Each structure stands twice: as structure tokens, then as C-alpha cells.
């Protein structure tokens, strides 16, 4: 096969960070080429160079054998290179269709925008993707997952010969991932070359032909996906093998109930949700996209108003009306959308970690103990292996996965009794993921009550002591965790639409 892309000896430095060290990458027509590496390994940076967003400090790029300079997104588009960005780059005030065709709006005579055509074109793309989506919806009103779908649709609309997908499934669940894979296979058969970046190891085997691994900005090696064990790839990524632990379910029958939710209701998104969470327990929440898990968490946390229902913490009823009340009651919530709800992107790592816990570092006259804060921040940077030149680096400049770790550190520092983690490992590499799993387990062992909302079933199964499944705003069942429960059982409840059968609630 001929190489459509050859990148060689690519160097890129940011202030304080040597992001790419003589990195290389090649891509053949009609292949899916996975690009792997830990958080901050330089995957996104390399692909941003290929799509004209960053200029390399040095190195050469050949497209179809021709040496090229790609000096902007337009130039990349001209070369047939399209990219789905890791951090969503959408215009929230515009509609779905307007976002997809920005810069390429269909016009009628006189250069007037043809809105009907625009919406039809967008509809056609979603029809091919088999995703139900209203092209007239404002992007602001969509969930992260749907926004991700818009990004994918936008990239597809270019009909690029080379398509870069930077963690396209980070916000998708299994069903949606399957749809995406079907699309990828079809593109492949049409001869499109695809670069696929993901931290979900199982996907690599399912979809990719070759795997290139990077570490610390440098090229490690390229292997064929079919005949390389996942363990080998992981070892190439992290430089060592990872152990596989099964979930050990503790006996919690004697543990006190930490959080008790009864009849929680908010519109159509949360309908009469009731459950108990014990101290020391990890309760997983599974469901399809839009099942209402995030809404449940936000309502419990007071981020959205509750229409009905009671919440009791440690047996005491609590009237939670705002996140402040929730945190005061000992509840913490890590949002699924770190960019909008989790991080102050313009501030440094230290300030972000401190955001929930400032009063603890404040003396009587309101003075902040910065030295102590710095020490604590350094601690978390070490334990969570956050890749940053210092705790004074702006969070905006960290790689996606490392940003996610900062949000986790923020809530760990707050030390709440009840922690709700919404998609905690979104965009986090395998090594760090294992680290976070261990951390959650040790938190639970220390008596914290934990809810984990995750769209990755293996993750839910790997972590949860019990698994709550939601469908269309209802809690359709709570299953025991561990190897006894199968993915099929969860899926059955996740698509359990019959409202009459409320008895399934445990």
C-alpha cells in the first residue's frame, strides 16, 4: 500500500514543554491507524500539526509523496485532511446544521443563505450516521455526547480522504460507538485513510489495522493490530505491564446508609428516582445516552432545581437548593463536561485544585496559605501523574486527559463523604485509569460513598459494587456488581421502556 501521509522528525516545543521529539507517523490509504499513548504523549499535538492548526518547529510532512507546508485549517482541507477535535470546537449559539457547514454554507442566487438546503444536507448526514438529531437544534442545548456527534458529522461532511478522529468516542456509549464504527468501516472501504486516537483499548482491536504508539512526544513503534496483544501495546505506552484486578465486593449490609434518595423528579429527565447508597459503596450508574443519569446527579447536587423528592444524608433530610448546600452536606459532584462546568481554564493547576477547598486554606482574616496549597497541589500532581511543567501552568494548556485529572484532584482534595463522579475517566489513558480505579476503591474502603456514572459498561462492571440502570429518566433496576452480572442484563434494563413495571426497582 502507498503512504498518503508521511510525517518525519517532527519537533514541537511549547513554553516549558517539549511536546514532540522527532516524532514520526505514516498512514496508508484505506487503513484505520490507531495512535496511542498516555495523556500528554503528544498525540493531539501531532495531529494538530497535520491539520494545520500548529506549525511544527521542524520536520517534514509529505502528502501523497509531495512535501507540503500546511499553514492553516483551510490548507489542510485543501489537501483532503479533516479532523474531529478532542476538545469540542463548536459554536454553541448556532444550530447543528449551521455548525456542520460553517464556512461552506449552501447559497441560492444572490449569495443568500439557503437554510432549507442547509438543514436537508445536515439531515442527510445524520441519516447516513443513523443518529437521530434535529439539525435546527441549538448546539448549546445538546449534551456533550450529542455535541460529539455534531463534530463527527461535521468531519464527515468534508468527504475528506484523510480523516483524523481525536478521541471521538470519549463521550459516546456502546451503541453510539457501534454506529460510529460502522461509519468508519464504510469510509475505509471507500479508501479513506483514518487516524484514530482513543484511550479505550478494546476499540483498538475492533477497528484498527495498525497501531502507532507514542511516549513523551517520541515515536515508540508501529505494530499490526490484529496480531499484537493489548498487553504489549499497553506496555509500549506506559513502559511496563499493568495488572488486572477484578472488583472485590465488600459486605456492606452493616454499613450505614450515607445517601438516601426518594421520589426524585424533575421534568421528563428524572422521574421518581429512588435509591440508597451506603458508606463504603460504589454504585455504578449505567444507561444509554440521555437516560437521565447526569440529570439525577445534578438534581441531587442542587445544580438544577428539584421538582419533587427527598434527599437524606446520613439519615438526616437535607433541603439541597444549590451546590453550596450539597457540598455543605458532604456531597461532591464531578461534572461530565469539564470544560464548561469543571475547570476555570484560564487559571493555573493549583487554583483549580483549590477551588472547592479554599476555606480550608484560609485563615481568619481571609488570607490564603499559598505555600500549603502549592504543597497539596504538588502531591496530587504526583499521585495522579498529571503531566504539567508546574502547578502554576494554566489548565488551558494541559492535554485533555490531564485536565480531567485536575478536576478529579479538585474533588479528592475536598474530601466529601459522598462523591458523584460523572464520566470520571473520560479521555484518561489506561495507566491513569487503573490508577483512578484504585483510588476510587481505596476511597470506598475508607468509608466514602461513591456514585460512578459511566457510559463504558466494562468500566461500570469493573468498578461497581451495585449497578443502577436508567432508561428515559426512570431507574429501571439495580443489579449486583461483579462477574455475576452480564452486559446483556444491563442493556435489557437500559432499554426497558415499560413504565408500568415500576416493581423492577430494588
Amino acid at each position, binding site marked *: 500500500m502507498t503512504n498518503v501521509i508521511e510525517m518525519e522528525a517532527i519537533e514541537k516545543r511549547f513554553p516549558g514543554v517539549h511536546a514532540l521529539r522527532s516524532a514520526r507517523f505514516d498512514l496508508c490509504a484505506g487503513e484505520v491507524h490507531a495512535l496511542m499513548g498516555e495523556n500528554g504523549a503528544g498525540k493531539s499535538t501531532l495531529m494538530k500539526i497535520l491539520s494545520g492548526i500548529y506549525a511544527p518547529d521542524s520536520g517534514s510532512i509529505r502528502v501523497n509523496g509531495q512535501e507540503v507546508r500546511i499553514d492553516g485549517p483551510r490548507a489542510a482541507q485543501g489537501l483532503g485532511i479533516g479532523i474531529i477535535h478532542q476538545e469540542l470546537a463548536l459554536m454553541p449559539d448556532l444550530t447543528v446544521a449551521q455548525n456542520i457547514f*460553517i464556512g461552506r454554507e449552501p447559497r441560492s442566487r444572490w449569495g443568500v443563505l439557503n437554510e432549507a438546503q442547509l438543514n436537508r444536507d445536515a439531515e442527510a448526514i445524520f441519516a447516513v450516521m443513523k443518529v437521530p438529531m434535529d439539525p435546527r437544534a441549538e448546539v448549546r442545548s445538546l449534551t456533550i455526547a450529542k455535541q460529539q456527534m455534531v463534530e463527527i458529522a461535521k468531519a464527515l461532511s468534508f468527504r475528506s480522504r484523510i480523516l483524523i478522529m481525536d478521541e471521538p468516542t470519549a463521550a459516546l456509549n456502546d451503541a453510539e460507538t457501534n454506529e460510529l464504527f460502522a461509519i468508519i468501516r464504510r469510509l475505509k472501504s471507500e479508501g479513506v485513510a483514518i487516524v484514530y486516537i482513543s484511550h479505550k483499548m478494546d476499540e483498538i482491536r475492533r477497528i484498527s489495522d495498525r497501531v502507532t504508539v507514542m511516549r513523551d512526544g517520541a515515536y515508540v513503534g508501529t505494530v499490526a493490530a490484529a496480531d499484537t496483544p493489548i498487553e504489549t501495546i499497553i506496555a509500549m505506552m506506559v513502559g511496563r505491564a499493568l495488572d488486572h484486578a477484578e472488583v472485590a465486593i465488600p459486605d456492606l449490609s452493616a454499613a450505614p446508609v450515607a445517601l438516601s434518595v426518594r421520589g426524585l423528579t424533575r421534568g421528563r429527565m428524572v422521574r421518581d428516582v429512588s435509591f440508597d447508597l451506603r458508606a463504603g459503596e460504589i454504585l455504578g450508574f449505567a444507561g444509554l445516552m440521555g437516560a437521565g443519569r447526569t440529570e439525577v446527579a445534578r438534581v441531587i447536587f442542587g445544580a438544577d432545581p428539584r421538582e419533587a423528592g427527598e434527599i437524606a444524608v446520613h439519615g438526616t433530610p437535607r433541603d439541597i437548593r444549590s451546590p453550596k448546600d450539597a457540598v455543605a452536606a458532604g456531597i461532591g459532584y464531578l461534572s461530565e463536561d469539564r470544560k464548561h462546568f469543571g475547570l476555570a481554564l484560564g487559571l493555573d493547576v493549583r487554583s483549580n485544585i483549590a477551588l472547592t477547598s479554599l476555606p480550608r486554606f484560609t485563615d481568619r482574616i481571609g488570607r490564603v496559605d499559598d505555600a500549603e496549597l502549592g504543597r497539596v497541589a504538588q502531591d496530587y500532581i504526583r499521585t495522579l501523574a498529571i503531566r504539567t511543567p508546574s502547578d502554576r501552568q494554566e489548565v488551558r494548556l494541559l492535554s485533555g486527559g490531564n485536565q480531567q485529572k485536575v478536576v478529579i484532584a479538585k474533588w479528592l482534595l475536598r474530601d466529601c463523604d459522598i462523591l458523584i463522579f460523572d464520566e470520571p475517566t473520560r479521555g484518561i489513558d489506561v495507566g491513569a485509569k487503573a490508577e483512578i480505579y484504585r483510588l476510587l476503591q481505596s476511597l470506598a474502603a475508607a468509608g466514602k460513598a461513591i456514585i460512578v456514572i459511566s457510559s463504558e459498561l466494562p468500566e461500570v462492571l469493573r468498578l461497581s459494587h451495585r449497578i443502577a440502570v436508567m432508561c428515559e429518566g426512570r431507574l429501571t433496576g439495580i443489579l449486583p456488581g461483579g462477574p455475576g452480572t452480564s452486559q446483556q442484563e444491563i442493556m435489557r434494563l437500559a432499554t426497558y421502556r415499560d413504565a408500568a413495571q415500576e416493581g423492577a426497582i430494588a
Partner: protein
Amino acid sequence: MTATPAATGALSRLKASGAHQKILAFASLIVLLVFFSLASPNFLQTSNILAILQATSVNGVLAIAATLVIITGGIDLSVGTLMTFCAVIAGVVLTFWGMALPFGIIAAIAAGTFCGFISGSLIARMKIPPFIATLGMMLILKGLSLVISGTKPIYFNDTPSFPLISTGSLIGSFIPALPVPNGVLILFVLALVISWVLSRTTLGRYCFALGSNEEAVRLSGVNADAWKVAIYALAGGICGIAGLLIASRLNSAQPALGLGYELDAIAAVVIGGTSLAGGRGSILGTIIGALIMSVLLNGLRILSVAQEWQTVVTGLIIIAAVYADMLRRRRAG
């Protein structure tokens, strides 16, 4: 009482189209109109209504220019002095050089477009924050207006038809009962045109896109900078029209005028529901905002409220109007 099915249908269609929201946006304005009509018999005379509209015309046109810029997430502090500058340019062409009326009109609009182009270039190409770039422009233009005019008003006595631009009445010559001054006509035509530009053209689309997420626009391969310059230039051209309106109304280019007008224009935009953060806004809202301000001022004057209290009441009502509008939106979801 039950509504007929047809009426309900129409109502729900109206609801679905979001049109009822826009009608409700008039609420504060209508409350004000009703109040002043009841409070003073002099308020609801044709001549006074026309006076209010006439008083809105200049601020309204400036506010339209400001709306464009604000939707992109920028701000334009130079609208007031740019208006004056354009008026002075018209004065130079028509009075100093004695050229014919069309040249004066073209010169004023061209001068505005050019200055907008400069501001836009400073902002888009040299990455100077809009506040600073247009503050600088505001001062430069204020000074230049004085320099060019010799710190004296320029009168348009040699161009007898000049005052007609604003004070003549095209409508009145067809429908004598409705002597709407041309200035008001120009305001509303301009509002329609720019509304159309915003919703139907590429430029309008990029206005919203830039204000919503400039980086995303850039990443999409759009020449964001060029469009931004174009938007500022268009806004500048509109200030040129405002310059013609005010000069024609005063039959003179007053070189010292214009400072402070930028705040009024921006206030009209924000009262009209356009967010200073960019990405959303409408010309209809801006026109309502501008009308609220002039109805308020006129009404208080008609009621002979003492001037110091006029200011207090204006402040209170601006806050109340925006608050009411926000409650309405929140309820509408």
C-alpha cells in the same frame, strides 16, 4: 370560554415559531406607552409620536451598528464620534468643496466604512482588544473632526435639499396624513435590511459564529479575520448614515458632538436583549431598546418631571425593563 380550534391552532403555531416571545419583548415598551398616554394628554399626539421616532432615529441607527459588532463579541466605542466625523466629511464635501449632494452622501458613508475597516483591522489583524482599538478610534476621530472643521460647525446652507434627508417626508408626500420624517423611514428600512443580512447572509452567519466561538470558526478554515474586518466596516458605514441623519437634522455638522453617544447606543442594544458576550442578539430587540429609551425620556419631559429626577427614573426603569425581559425569557425557558 373556549377558543375556537382555528384560533388555538394559530396560537400554537405562533408559539412554535417563537413569534409570541418577540411580541412579549415589546411588553416594557407598551407598558411605558400606556402609562404616559394615561398620564398626559399631550403624549399621544401624532406630532409627539413623530418627535419620539425622530429622536430615536440617530441613536437607533448607531445602535444597529453597535449590534453587529456586539454580536461578534466585540464592542464599538467609536460609533458616536465616527458619526460626527462622517457628518464633518459630508460638510467638507458639500460646503467646503461645493460638490453635489450625492457626493456628500457617498463620502460620509465611505468615510464611515473606511474608519470601520481600520478599527476592524486593528482588532482582527493586530489583535488589539476591541475596547482599546475603538476607544483609540473614538479619540482620534473626535480630534480629527475638530481639526478638519476648524472647531466650528459646518453649515449646509449651500445644499438646500440636505435637511430633507432627515426631516423631509417621503411617506408624507404620498400619504399626507402620515408625515413620517425620512430619518425615521431610513431607520426602519435600515433595520429591515440589517435584520435580513444577519439572518440570511454569510456575513450575518459569521457574526453569530464569531461571537459564539471565534476559535471554532478559525478551526473550521474560515478566514475569520477578514470577516471580522468586514463586519466592523459595515458597522462603520452605518455610522456614516447616522452622521448624515444628524447633520441633516441639525443642518450642520457639529464637530464637538458624539461623545457619550456610544453608551446610549450600547445601552439600547443590551436593553434589547443582545448579550455583550456575543453570539446572540437581534435588530428588532435593539430597535425596541432604542425606543424604550426615547419614549422614557420624552414621556418624563412631557410630564415635566424635574431633570434630576428624570435621570433617577430612567436608571430605575432601564433596570426594571431588563429584569422583566429576563423573567419572561426564563419563564419561556
